[in-house]
């Protein structure tokens, strides 16, 4: 490994990590946008579609 490796800062604290785990309504909306923004045409909107 290179001796001049520079990593800036420190990792997140345990509290910061735990705060990021809980799923909120905003997270769900964000995940749906995440899916639709890169889904193949056929699969766009699938997460919000109905069951039969």
């Amino acid at each position, binding site marked *: 490994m290179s001796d001049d490796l520079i*990593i800036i800062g420190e990792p*997140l604290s345990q509290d910061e990590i735990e705060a990021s785990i809980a799923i909120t309504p905003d997270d769900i909306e964000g995940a749906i946008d995440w899916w639709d923004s890169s889904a193949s045409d056929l699969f766009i909107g699938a997460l919000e579609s109905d069951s039969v």
Partner: protein
Amino acid sequence: MSLDQPEIRYQLQWNESEHGWQLVGTGDMVSTAAIHQEVRNHAVLSSTMFDTMTVQLYQAQIAVSQWQNAMLAEIKDGHIADAIFGAGGIGNMTPEAYARVEATLAKEAKYLAEFAQGISDGTVSELQARARARQYAQAMEQSYWNEWKAGLDVPEFSNLPLLENVPGDGNTQCHGNCQCVLLFNADGVEWSLNVAEHCPDCLALASGGPYRVV
């Protein structure tokens, strides 16, 4: 709905009895291979993002906390989205389903914290870090399978052996590189080998079915 917001017409709907996605227009079921490919396509994009961010980290363009936060955000998006997809849409997501996703996220966040500490300590080379970062994208698929199987409580399967693994859950020797899929038919759930090289664990799982999954 206003005039400038046209009605959204989805092309797919979840078929409860077939436990899979079907085309709205024809009712034809979407193949497991196509589903698997779609989930993989998303993972490939996340993998590219993880790789880029990790290069930036080693070039000192971003701090390790920024890298970790960005990794966690993408991991969270991917696992939630894949879980909803596996459940058959947001209408099928229960509090228990979200709790399962949170448990998976907690596990991934723990591994990521150890990873970040290793990077910070200087014990992980850039090449090692890039390879390891990409695995978090491949592991997203487990949330698809976790919710897909959670909806398969079939009384007729109750005497079958329980399948505890899902593809990509990291419990097989191929870890997140797993290319296998699960198939549901009248006999139970099969662990199916896709076109790829397979690890001994997946070969054993494929020969051990059919299974129950809940």
